[in-house]
């Protein structure tokens, strides 16, 4: 059934039991919203030299956006920045594939479960919300931006 291709068990599991949720110490903080549906995320990035020491987040939104943030935390924390950026680019490419890609499990691990979401244009933004926030926060952390008070 089509719906199951979007709501994979992996996604529902991350949604119900999110990994790394909660705001912790960070070098930069961003707040991103999906204006069409009201999904929101506050996300902090903590760097340790060239390594992504932590990605912490708080948010509200649909199962897709929340599960995606959980998967991001799993995948990126502990990685070197260059590798984390490659993973982010691979996820972005998968989400923009309109259902034409399956994703490289070696690189994306649980995130390949989102391949089905890429068939639903209205939901791609949900899946990408935390990833775009992460990219923004990382750029700010590298630029030495101070941590803002959480909203």
């Amino acid at each position, binding site marked *: *059934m*089509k*719906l199951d291709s*979007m*709501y994979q068990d992996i996604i*529902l599991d991350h949604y119900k039991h999110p990994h790394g949720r909660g705001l912790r110490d960070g070098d930069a903080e961003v707040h991103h919203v999906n204006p*069409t*549906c*009201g*999904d*929101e995320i506050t996300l902090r990035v903590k760097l340790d030299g060239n390594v992504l020491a932590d990605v912490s987040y708080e948010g*509200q*939104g*649909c*199962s*897709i*956006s*929340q599960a995606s943030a959980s998967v991001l935390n799993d995948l990126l924390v502990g990685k070197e920045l260059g590798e984390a950026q490659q993973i982010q680019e691979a996820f972005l490419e998968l989400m923009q594939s309109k259902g034409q890609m399956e994703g490289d499990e070696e690189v994306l691990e649980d995130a390949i479960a989102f391949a089905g979401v890429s068939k*639903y244009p209205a*939901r791609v933004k*949900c899946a990408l919300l935390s990833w775009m926030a992460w990219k923004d926060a990382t750029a700010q952390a590298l630029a030495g931006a101070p941590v803002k008070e959480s909203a």
Partner: protein
Amino acid sequence: MIPTSRTLDVDAIRKDFPVLSRILPNGKPLVYLDNAATSQKPRQVLDALTAYYELHNANVHRGVHTLAEEATALYEGARDAVASFINAPSRDEVVFTKNASESLNLVANMLGWAEEPYKVDADSEIVITEMEHHSNIVPWQLLAQRTGAKLKWFGLTDDGRLDLSHIDEIITEKTKVVSFVLVSNILGTVNPVEAIVRRAQDVGALVVIDASQAAPHMVLDVQALEADFVAFTGHKMLAPTGIGVLWGRQELLEDLPPFLGGGEMIETVSMQSSTYAPAPHKFEAGTPPIAQAVGLGAAIEYLNGVGMDAIWAHEHRITEYALQRLQEVPDLRIIGPTTAEDRAAAISFTLGDIHPHDVGQVLDEQGIAVRVGHHCARPVCLRYGIPATTRASFYLYSTEAEVDALIDGLHHVRAFFG
């Protein structure tokens, strides 16, 4: 074909709307419950559009050839239809815009550029409400920012109605304009116009009413409302997108300055200055949405054929039934009035902790089209402490069977995410 009694022949009406018999790619028949976002279009409106383009297409108000005269007559005929539909004292009070947002922005800009006594400046106050669509918030925020005027608003009660308990403190001698929605697009609330208009008139403030969710569903009488401006859009009332209306009292339209300049809106133009055409043309710069206006005229003819009182009565019955059945669904919380009294046929709700996006997706799988999100009324979601809602909204072609399909669908949603 269309009955004129108070009871609708819904089966006959549904046959006029081709899309309502559509089978979706997943094999499910369409259950269209997103009418507050936009309505579907009957064959009669589609035929009017086709006939316009096939037989009469020309630019309006210029040229002496046959097609130009026919196009002008059709366009101006639509203005007559609108004037009659809203009981306007004069057809010259009906300004065509592209949608309700443009109508409201037009009023805000008229007042921003106006001379006294209408001028909004740093000593002025603007009053709106917390249940406005963004289209009746942002234009006033812009006007306030540009003029230094103070923006104030009525809050909401827990049961989804305007809190008018401090009306004399909110609408004061400084208030230049009060702009509010007649029917909320997210809560479904029908607002008490008279109390607000009375207070606004006492302090000499202009009254602007956003009737976007009212015009499609109920008798709209601008004289009875006693407002100064009334805005609404065509596409929610069976007409095409791209056509909206601003009704304004004639003396105001004469006194207030134009906003957009260009062709059509002028009397004479020299390199130094111009004089303007009389209203409504003063506010209709450029080639207008001609076919869309013709479509709106056809839509009004269709609505009049059914009867606005009959449509209201039908939707009231559907709303009563839907409210009753929705409240049987466990964990479902209605955001807005829970009874059909002073209420229209848009019903927002939350379903436990299941995000509306997920609710909408699973309903879509069953062919049920609802709107999810904050419905361009984010302050309402903030007020009730929710990120978003799911909204089902009904129209003249909606049936109790469609309500039943929605309820079955919601049980399915709960099972899926349970």
